[in-house]
């Protein structure tokens, strides 16, 4: 495994994100049955599991796109409910499975609209930074293109750049490559890998096991609303302890 910026920085005294006994239900369906988890600064946590296991829901609870019915979530040491919703979300970035770019705006405007309208940052400043980020994700030439003119992989990279514009402390990836054609997955994973190498704290829900092994610091296996097993990627993915983990890994390798 390659050395990462985070391994040179001593671990902070408190984890960046703490999830304690979180429960969540949709109607009569209990989707999260008591989740305990932490994410340290600079860590890349990869969450895997069968569909319906609650992985995406957990992610969406972190930035309060979903509310919780029990337990608590702490961000930077404070309960997420103590933050104003939009303040919290400016510090936590999210990348969606369906990209969710704003269809009526060019790639450049997709990136600049939030800082311009929320922080009232000057257009020129925003656009300069936006061009930088677009170059970072390999799309400098596409600044003026509209989402419908971009491939899925390009749209997702724009979406990542858009989230980065807000300078978040944590990036959440909700099955970021699941809606992509196979040949486009690589370009997005490359961007995510680069982000990790640069020290970004990331929580990644994915089915890409190779990415988990090569980029993740920790793998969390969820099933039926609970964390079944977690640990270093090689441990969980190559020598799982729990039978359910074994079953899941066998199924997806077929």
């Amino acid at each position: 495994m390659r050395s990462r910026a985070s391994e040179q920085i001593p671990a902070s005294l408190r984890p960046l994100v703490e999830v304690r006994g979180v429960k969540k239900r949709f109607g009569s369906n209990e989707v999260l049955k008591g989740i305990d988890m932490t994410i340290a600064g600079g860590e890349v946590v990869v969450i895997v599991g069968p569909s319906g296991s609650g992985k995406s829901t957990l992610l969406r609870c972190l930035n309060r796109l979903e509310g919780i019915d029990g337990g608590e979530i702490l961000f930077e040491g404070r309960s997420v409910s103590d933050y104003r919703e939009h303040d919290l979300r400016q510090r936590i970035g999210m990348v969606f499975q369906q990209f969710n770019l704003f269809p009526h705006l060019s790639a450049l405007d997709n990136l600049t609209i939030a800082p311009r309208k929320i922080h009232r940052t000057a257009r020129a400043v925003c656009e300069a930074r936006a061009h930088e980020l677009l170059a970072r994700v390999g799309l400098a030439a596409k600044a003026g293109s509209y989402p419908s003119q971009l491939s899925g992989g390009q749209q997702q990279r724009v979406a990542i750049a858009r989230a980065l514009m807000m300078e978040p402390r944590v990036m959440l990836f909700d099955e970021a490559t699941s809606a992509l054609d196979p040949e486009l997955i690589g370009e997005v994973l490359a961007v995510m890998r680069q982000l990790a190498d640069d020290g970004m704290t990331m929580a990644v829900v994915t089915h890409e096991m190779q990415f988990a092994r090569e980029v993740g610091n920790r793998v969390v296996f969820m099933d039926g609303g609970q964390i079944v097993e977690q640990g270093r990627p090689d441990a969980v993915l190559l020598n799982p302890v729990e039978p359910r983990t074994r079953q899941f890994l066998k199924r997806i390798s077929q």
Partner: protein
Amino acid sequence: MGEAGYVFMPQVIWLHLPQLAQGLLRTLGASALGIVAAALIGLVFGAARAYRVPVASQVAAAYVALFRGTPILVQIFFLYDALPELGIRLDVAEVAVLALALWGGSYNTENFRAAFGAVPGGALQAAAALGMPAHLRFAWIALPIAFRLVLPALGNTSISVLKDSAYLSVIAFAELTYVATNIVATEFRVFEMFAVLAVTYLGMVLLLSWGLSRITAHLAARGTVGDA
């Protein structure tokens, strides 16, 4: 009259051209004001309905039911004959624009309601995830997208408002139809006047329809919703 056949005499048209032109101007003026007002009403009430704003949503529903469920002719007469009884005295031009605005606004409310409802939820979620508060999400994401979605329906309703302006002749608002029918009443030149009306109204409708399709095509090509 009393001749064996009917001879088409276009001279009648040239003779009354100034009057007819003035009538056309009134038609365009009242329609333009009515269309703009109807669009604004539709936007406000449509958003209220789509986002279930308490009180406003119910008022909007009642308003739509009333103005789409009753004949525009009755609405016009009510505004002109009945409002004075309630102490509101409006002159003909004001009634004209108000009638068009209220009628068009009721259809636009439904148009905008559908458009706001069709804004992709994912885009709004992404905006929320970026930390945009609700009023900014509405102004910079929902509204622009809804506006592009509503254009065809908005355009069609606006064309209908233009055609409805002919009804205003019944309260002696001197728009095109009023002028033309007066000329018929005095000079008995039905076919010539009808030709004028047909060419003018059809011309305007076709022109507006063409303009509308050009605008929607331009927005679609630029890659707005519908292609994404």
